[in-house]
């Protein structure tokens, strides 16, 4: 057993250096026997990773991950391209209803956060806690980025592993919008000056919901209320200023606020075409990314509201009935490695901010991350505001749909 793991470690080191990483994988310095066993079990498994596939860069990144885990761990990674994570929740639930046992599912790993995680956790559709036992978890910035342990105020309890960070960010062509609005109130003033040129994605699109939550955050009397699940009696009172604001804003939006683009990419395309003044994203690096890919002009700038915008963490989780649970954990661990996180943060590949604390990393691994800002990147990052509790999302979305659809 010992000789086996030793020789395999050597192989992995060779594989690692061959693929360009001049670093020793962190876990290789102190592999626990349990983890070594898990890696052994994972070899040869096929992991069906259900991940949103609306972006080319994400898909390409996952192709790279697939090649890496195949070479290093003998795990075959299949990217199951989905448009809405709710489908996956539904499928796993249908499988549970149909009596599928552990090891009989069609989903091994799912890209998830927020209400979908809350639903899966509540309905016991997830594998027993595993994430904090991953060798690379110790580098996660759980102090500076508390959302890595608290997914929309729902404790992760080791049932999902952090993958990337996100913060609500706006971007626009500086030639057309030299003075970007710095708050929801300024946004309303801008919409009044230039009617029909602003919009946000139709809820329940994630970015659309975030736009509304940001507005809620800026209009609620006491922010502390939002950290706990809403009390039915209070909901109307707490959210009244929000609806007041949206009622004022909507008549000045694109198509009179009677229709909304389907998703942020549609908003971005309309901004690029000049139909809209500004676009929204949850990935602060997206504009820089699009400039690099020559789909947006270099005059595009991005910013966050001066007093801060909502931010959160996205995760990967394993369903209770995953066929390749071991392989899925190996993949999750690789996704947390400095090598994978650095490539993900690199805008020439994806540009998704890391969940790691760079100070905790060994210097060689820290050097994988660049430090200079690029054209289109946020020049002056604003504070990250915590998400409201996940239980707010559903009633807000329902009320929004009732009022505006």
């Amino acid at each position, binding site marked *: 057993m010992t000789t086996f793991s030793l020789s395999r470690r050597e192989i992995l080191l060779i594989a690692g250096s061959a693929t360009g990483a001049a670093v020793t994988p962190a876990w290789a310095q102190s592999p626990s026997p349990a983890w070594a066993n898990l890696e052994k079990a994972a070899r040869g498994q096929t992991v*069906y990773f*259900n991940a949103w*596939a*609306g*972006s*080319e860069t994400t*898909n*390409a990144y996952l*192709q790279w991950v697939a090649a890496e885990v195949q070479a290093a761990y003998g795990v075959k990674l*299949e990217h*199951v*391209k*989905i*448009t*809405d994570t*709710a*489908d*996956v*929740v*539904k*499928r796993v*639930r*249908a499988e549970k209803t*149909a009596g599928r046992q552990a090891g009989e599912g*069609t989903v091994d790993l799912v890209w998830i956060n927020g209400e*979908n995680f809350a*639903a899966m956790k509540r309905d016991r559709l997830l594998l027993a806690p595993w994430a904090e036992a991953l060798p690379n978890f110790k580098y996660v910035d759980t102090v500076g980025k508390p959302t890595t342990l608290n997914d929309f105020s729902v404790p992760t309890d080791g049932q999902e592993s952090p993958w990337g960070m996100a913060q609500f960010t706006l971007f626009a062509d500086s030639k057309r919008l030299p003075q970007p609005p710095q708050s929801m109130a300024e946004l309303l003033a801008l919409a009044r000056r230039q009617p*029909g*040129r602003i919009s946000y994605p*139709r809820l329940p699109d994630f970015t659309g919901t975030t736009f509304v939550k940001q507005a809620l955050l800026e209009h609620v009397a006491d922010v502390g209320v939002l950290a706990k699940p809403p009390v039915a009696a209070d909901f109307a009172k707490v959210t009244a200023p929000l609806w007041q604001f949206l009622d004022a804003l909507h008549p000045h939006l*694109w*198509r009179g606020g*009677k*229709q*909304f*683009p*389907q*998703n942020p*990419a*549609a908003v*971005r*395309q*309309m901004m*690029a*075409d*000049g*139909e809209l003044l500004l676009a929204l994203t949850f990935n602060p690096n997206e504009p820089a990314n699009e400039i690099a*890919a*020559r*789909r*947006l*002009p270099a005059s595009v700038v991005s910013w966050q509201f001066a007093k801060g915008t909502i931010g959160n963490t996205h995760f990967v989780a394993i369903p209770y009935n995953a066929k390749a649970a071991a392989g899925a954990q190996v993949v999750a661990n690789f996704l947390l490695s400095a090598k994978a996180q650095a490539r993900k943060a690199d805008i020439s590949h994806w540009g998704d901010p890391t969940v790691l604390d760079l100070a905790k990393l060994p210097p060689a691994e820290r050097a994988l991350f660049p430090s200079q800002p690029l054209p289109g990147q946020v020049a002056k990052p604003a504070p990250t505001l915590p998400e409201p509790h996940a239980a707010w999302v559903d009633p807000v979305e329902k009320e929004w749909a*009732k009022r505006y*659809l």
Partner: protein
Amino acid sequence: MTAFRLFWSTTLLLLAGGPLLAVAGLALASLFDATAWHALWQDPHALPALALTLWTGLASTVLAWWLSAALLAQGFVRQSLGRLLRGLPVMLATPHAALAIGLVFLLAPSGWVLRALSPWLTGFEFPPPWPTTQDPWGLGLIVALTAKEIPFLLWTAATQLQRDDVRQRWRSEHALAQTLGYSPQRAFWRVVWPQLSARLWWPLLAVLAYGLTVVDMALVIGPASPPTLAVLAWQWLQDADLAVNAQGAAAGGVLALALLAAALLWRAAQGLSARSGHALNGVRGAAPPPGNTSKSERVPVSFHLLAGLYGAVLLALAVGSVAGVWPFPRVWPEAVTGQAWQRVWDSRDTVGTTLGLALASAALALAWSVAWLELAPRRWDTALRPVLYVPLVLPAVLWVVGLYHLALWWRLEGQWLGLLLAHTSMVLPYVLLTLSPAYLGFDARYAALSASLGHGPWRFLWRIKWPLLRRALAASAAVGFAVSVAQYLPTLYVGAGRFNSVTTEAVNLAAGAQRSLTSAYAGLQFVLPVLAFALAAWLGAPRRFKGSRS
């Protein structure tokens, strides 16, 4: 009937009828949920969505029906049907979603039409805030559906006119009517059209069903708030909440009822117009102007317009697929990039899946159809037709619910085999529909002649019947291929999202609005069936004998 024929006919019946009935049964069973119906009734969007569905579905069907009839009339009278049909396969092969995506690129406020006119004519420096795509009245959807269904109706009419016996009879009847003093146009409407339109009942029903229940096209170009009921049903079916799923199935049930009502209404209207008696009022109509005789063989202008629209859509997709930064109002992109096609090349598995499924399902459906038409007694065939056409007329959102339940039951969900069966169930009716006129119209005397020369049945089939019918065989296989390529809902639902086809990619990307990649996939979605039709045309070309009449 011999024991051999009885055995094989029964087997074929069970092979196709069994699963189809099971799927239909499972789909309908999902409707027995009182709370879901109540929830649907309470939903504020359901009624406006249903109204939009009826409006877009009926308007597009009526438009497609009358424009096709007018084109057929002109084609028949001017004897230019053959030339008209030559341009048809390309249009027929264009998947619904690709056409819708291309139309959006043309008509959007930042689309090509306005780019071409700005700023010199319109004065626009920025795209105007006009609701020209996903318009709340569903006009874009109606245009897209009409443009897509005309070729289908023309094609099915053509398969009727391909039958030698029918064509000759109608020609002589048409000539006879003219000797009674009717103008060629009027003679067509009085003599040929009533006979032809009666035979187009099933295709018409398919068009009506498609118009009322389409999801992929409506997602791309249809109204958004509220969307049509089919889109709403599809969104509900995908919801994480089981109660909302049941509501989606109930909405599928409403669509089925709407289709039934619309079909009955259509029938009643047809019966009424047939009985109104104007056919026998003796009015002869204007004679054709002298000099411009009926043999002018010109293809109608409206057909050129339709062809032009398809051409513009294709060009928009081609240019869009290589576009980088492309600010309004520039007619051509500032930067050209091959990134999108590079990505397509990187995911060639997707193309492989699409091709494999299309080839396999078309082959299965063709084999089954030929065996069925060859062996089954005509009475069985007539009795089974309604069951076989169920996938055509049952709303797709409801059909996939049944398919998914059956796949779960057989443990085929998320597997290639399950996907193949799902595709075949959708392909089979189309293949049978396009194959049977020619196959059943095959002159029976050939068989007698062949037998009298001492040839066995296999030799007759291989050497005489199938070679003579190869045009129809190849064409129906191509139709099956195109239908499979265009499948969106079954691929996504039964494939558990594990299998991507060029269609699921194109529709998913259209929602993501990545212009270049969307165009690339939509273009690919278009190219594959066109290649199949070209292959079919080549295979189906009649043999030429040296020295015989040209």
